[in-house]
């Protein structure tokens, strides 16, 4: 609100309402995080006070952070998670863009069959795939590796479907024009269509990263070593270790959040630029 008045513009009633709603929503969104961070600095007895205290006795109490970093190799987990996310994002963007463009703009044999195959994947719960996928990974002897973490995300049905929607929105005239100029289908895709989907690509990158990050069961099944797990799955082993030592659990959660916040901050710029670009285009 301070920002709006600095602008010198009179704040309308509607705007006040908008701010109120957004701020109220923000409080609900932020509170659990705040609580997570506050709890991570408390001692165990402090967490079981009635009524609960808001602030920890001291923010210098980093015992929980020391304990969790001693029991989980966080640096390795960061590395594994980032590698997994990076490879999965690249695969999702490259393969899904190609497929999405073809589905949206090219006529080719068996297109409907192939598309049905892609869309139907969205319906299937991931738990179904776990055991057979494990057997495949194990058969090629690649358990306990980054490749094993990446494996289920080599291709993305979600990404294909999501990007297809975007390519559908690109006017056919634009594609036709390029084709008439003598561009091959693939060149049209690479040099004309693909650059127009920046927004969606940024969004897909973020979403793929999130899916990969959230995956809990797969890393636990396929990678046995503690130092080959991802942050999410590592965190769940913490749960078994400390049962409800909340400060430790929350400290682990805070540490596990850091890379995702960094990724979001990096991509947010792309996000906004992309959105602005599409906004002026239409």
């Amino acid at each position, binding site marked *: 609100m301070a*920002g709006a008045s600095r602008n010198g513009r009179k704040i309308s009633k*509607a705007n006040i309402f*908008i*701010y109120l*709603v957004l701020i109220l*929503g*923000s409080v609900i*969104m*932020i509170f*659990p*995080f705040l*609580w*997570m961070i506050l709890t991570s600095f408390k001692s165990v007895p402090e*967490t079981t006070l009635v009524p*609960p205290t808001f602030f920890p006795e001291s923010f210098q109490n980093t015992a929980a952070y020391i304990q969790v970093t001693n029991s989980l190799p966080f640096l390795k987990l960061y590395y594994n998670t980032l590698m997994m996310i990076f490879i999965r994002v690249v695969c999702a963007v490259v*393969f899904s863009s*190609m497929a999405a*463009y*073809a589905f949206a703009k*090219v*006529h*080719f*044999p*068996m*297109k409907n069959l*192939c598309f049905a*195959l*892609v869309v*139907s994947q969205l*319906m299937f*719960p*991931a*738990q*179904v*795939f776990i*055991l*057979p996928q494990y057997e*495949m990974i194990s058969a090629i002897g690649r358990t306990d590796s980054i490749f094993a973490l990446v494996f289920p995300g080599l*291709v*993305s049905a*979600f990404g294909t479907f999501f990007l297809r*929607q975007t390519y559908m*929105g690109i006017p056919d005239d634009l594609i036709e024009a390029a084709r008439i100029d003598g561009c091959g*289908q*693939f060149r049209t895709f690479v040099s004309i269509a693909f650059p127009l989907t920046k*927004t*969606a690509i940024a969004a897909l990158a973020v979403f793929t990263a*999130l899916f990969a990050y959230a995956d*809990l069961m797969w890393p636990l099944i396929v990678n046995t070593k503690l130092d080959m797990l991802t942050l*999410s799955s590592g*965190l769940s082993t*913490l749960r078994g270790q400390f049962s409800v030592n909340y400060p430790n659990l929350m400290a682990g*959660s805070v540490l*596990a*959040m850091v890379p995702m916040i960094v990724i979001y*901050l990096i991509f*947010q710029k792309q996000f*906004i630029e992309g*959105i602005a670009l*599409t906004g002026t285009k239409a």
Partner: protein
Amino acid sequence: MARQQKTKTKYSKGAATGFFMVMPTVIGLIILNIYPLLRTVYMSFFKSGAFGKWTFVGLDNYIKMFQSAGFWTITKNTLVFMVLTVPVTVIFGLIIAVLLDQKIKGKTVFRAIYFLPMVVAPAAVAMVWKWLFNSEYGIINTVLGALHLPSDINWIADPKTALLTCAIVTIWSSVGYDAILLLSGLQSISRTYYEAARIDGATGFQQFRKITVPLVSPTLFFVLMMRVMASLKVFDIVYMMIEKTNPAIRSAETILYNFYQETFVKNNKGYGSALVVWCVILIAVITIIQFIGQKKWVTYDV
């Protein structure tokens, strides 16, 4: 052969390229998903023994499934969970997206805030909310007490609230995701439509109904479809919040939770496979209904 090739020339010259472009995805999906899925369907006609010793039992698993009282409870719970989460998440997501699309200051900050739940690992989400909802030491009951509202609610272990609690957590963690998706749809609507409407004297709500909703409808449809599927596939959050010895388990157990129990705990892989097949059928039916329904409200190509 040659003749056949001729008839195919109705495809554009780039047809081969198009085919080539979808192949990595299609082949990948066949290996990673289709084959495991077919195996699951196949397995649903068998009774599992230890280590791949299977006995063919025909439709027994399905008969047992449809006859079990627990099966209808988990199906009902799953559908209730869908009803509890989908409309609220999508409507709130749309409201947030529309508000963020206005000319306001601090947009970036708000967007980041609403996106925040997405960066938390599901294990962490379950842990922090379980603690917030704790009936004695949790802050939620404390706040309710301070507001003179009922404050002795056992959110997680009361059969009346357990599923609702899981739904609240799910809404919290997915509303920002939907909002961001919808926002990208909204941002691509040309400002000229709104300007024209404003000149014609349309009110804000009229603009919303006549311009925003139709133009964002493809994205809205996409969001709705994904949300419905996700809600029918719910597992993680219920699994981590509601334990097996929780008296509320009967009213919170979902199809995939039961699948996990049967397949990985009780080692009834055949029966578990039948449950998954049922889950997929349920999702397929609801998705088809949505696809038929979309013709009534989704506008492509304006």
